[in-house]
């Protein structure tokens, strides 16, 4: 390695992108589409962008959002309004410029087939780009998706998954959409000895998927969330406890993650 290389300006984009679309797609949940840059065009499933709400009343740090889709011209994210940052983000308008940084983090590895994707709530969003990739690498038969929401009002991207792949199981906690039940129950009923499970959603859900897949000898990859400072691996603010060769260590969600071996996460 030659350390005297010029600054490696080519992997991460930082600057303004134009808002191509912003739309409420389900209860308090928005899809945000921004123009591409060469760096962003190379985004992998599971990576995220660090995005600064434009109106910065009392907001200091950017907010991390998963990459939902990336095509020739644009990058898509889906976010739910939680607090001030996402609240302001919901107010940006088409044509405005938005400051963002990305792609960041280590995404999902698509090592083998067949696989199951398990997404709960907003956790569904990073799985779409992953499904696309798995589909193109291993064919439609090689991948199944289980996506669940609290109820119909909170659901999004159900049709998008449907038109992407044939094997999509949809569920909701109250039965207002698809089967009644949570994604873990649906996984347990429909698991067919797949070799890899990819999961994203709340921690308790990930833990349950981990317990289940451990017993089934399937590999598991999960995507974690933690509050972030730098998004670049420098501040050690975003750690999660992971089993490593050194025992248990705090690893950086923004750098070693957000995707981790689901059986090594200390839930």
């Amino acid at each position, binding site marked *: 390695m030659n350390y*005297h290389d010029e600054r490696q*300006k*080519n992997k991460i984009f930082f600057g303004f992108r134009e808002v191509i679309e912003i739309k409420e797609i389900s209860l308090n949940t928005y899809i945000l589409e921004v123009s591409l840059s060469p760096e962003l065009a190379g985004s992998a499933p599971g990576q995220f962008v660090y995005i600064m709400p434009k109106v910065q009343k009392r907001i*200091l740090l950017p907010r991390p959002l998963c990459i939902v889709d990336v095509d020739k011209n644009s990058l898509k994210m889906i976010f739910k309004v939680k607090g001030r940052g996402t609240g302001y983000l919901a107010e940006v308008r088409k044509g405005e410029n938005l400051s963002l940084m990305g792609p960041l983090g280590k995404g999902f590895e698509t090592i083998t087939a067949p696989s199951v994707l398990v997404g709960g709530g907003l956790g569904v969003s990073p799985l779409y780009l992953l499904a696309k990739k798995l589909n193109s690498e291993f064919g439609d038969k090689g991948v199944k998706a289980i996506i669940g929401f609290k109820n119909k009002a909170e659901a999004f991207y159900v049709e998008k998954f449907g038109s992407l792949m044939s094997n999509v199981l949809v569920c909701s906690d109250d039965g207002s959409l698809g089967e009644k039940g949570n994604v873990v129950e649906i996984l347990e009923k429909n698991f067919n000895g797949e070799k890899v499970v990819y999961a994203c959603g709340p921690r308790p859900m990930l833990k349950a998927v981990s317990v289940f897949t451990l017993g089934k000898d399937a590999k598991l990859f999960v995507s974690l969330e933690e*509050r972030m400072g730098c*998004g670049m691996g*420098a501040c050690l603010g*975003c*750690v999660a406890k992971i089993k490593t060769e050194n025992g248990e260590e*705090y690893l950086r969600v923004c750098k070693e993650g957000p995707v981790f071996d689901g059986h090594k996460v200390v839930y």
Partner: protein
Amino acid sequence: MRMDISTKVGKLHLKNPVMPASGTWGYGEEYLDFVVPEELGAVVVKGTTIEPREGNAPPRLAETPAGLLNCVGLQNVGLEKFIKEKLPVLKERKAFVIVNIAGNTVDDYRKISSALKDEKPVSAIEVNISCPNVKEGGISFGVNPDSAARVIKAVRKECPKPVIAKLTPNVSDIVSIAKACLDAGADAVTLINTLKGIAIDTANQKPLLPNITGGLSGPAIKPVALAMVYEVKKATGAAIIGVGGIESFEDALEFIMAGASAVQIGTANFYNPNVMPEIIKGFEEYFIKNGIKSMEELIGAAVL
């Protein structure tokens, strides 16, 4: 034309006055997409302890108005791994390295200085007696002139390299602490580490950080940092590295005029990874525009 914006911090001669604040820029490897360490005045690495530390449980961060609370708790790879794995990379790059060190006891500080004294690529030691996020040592040394002096003396005795004392603002009288450190042999002081703060998670009726308190950084603390730089400069004339809330060239200039010979940038890197090169450029342009020949003309210019 490239302006000479070099500066002197005690015995240290830096090519420019801009460096990252310890703990906010890792080991200089993380931000390579934006900044290469060798273009900075110096690189201050994450607080280093003898043994590796796992740090505090997450969440470790909470945003506050124009500020950030952190309770990382000195998670670091430990002295051995730092010397074996991190230092060679910085050396290859010819970065100017300042190592921020921390310990639980005076003896810890002594040992770690002793281990670093023969490491050529280390240009100076910044003694962190101000970390608010660890149970032992850290800040407890920094709130009292005597204990602060004891740590600095131990480091001074062990290590011929320039010694910089990094002080906490959570004190009644920063001048007396700074004086004690200077008398004990410090070449300079870094002002300031974070202010102690708390955020409450009202939905769950508990402190947001499991560590309860965190250290407050970011623009919010800039006026407090400036006051401490100003007062220590006025009272002691010491060489000072100013830090706290700097997010623009204008901010950096405030610190220089208040008495700092160099500045560190922490939290601002998180929301603007280009901030340090921008500040360096800001100094160059300011020197040209105002016909400044040497940083000396600006250091402490506002101290009455």
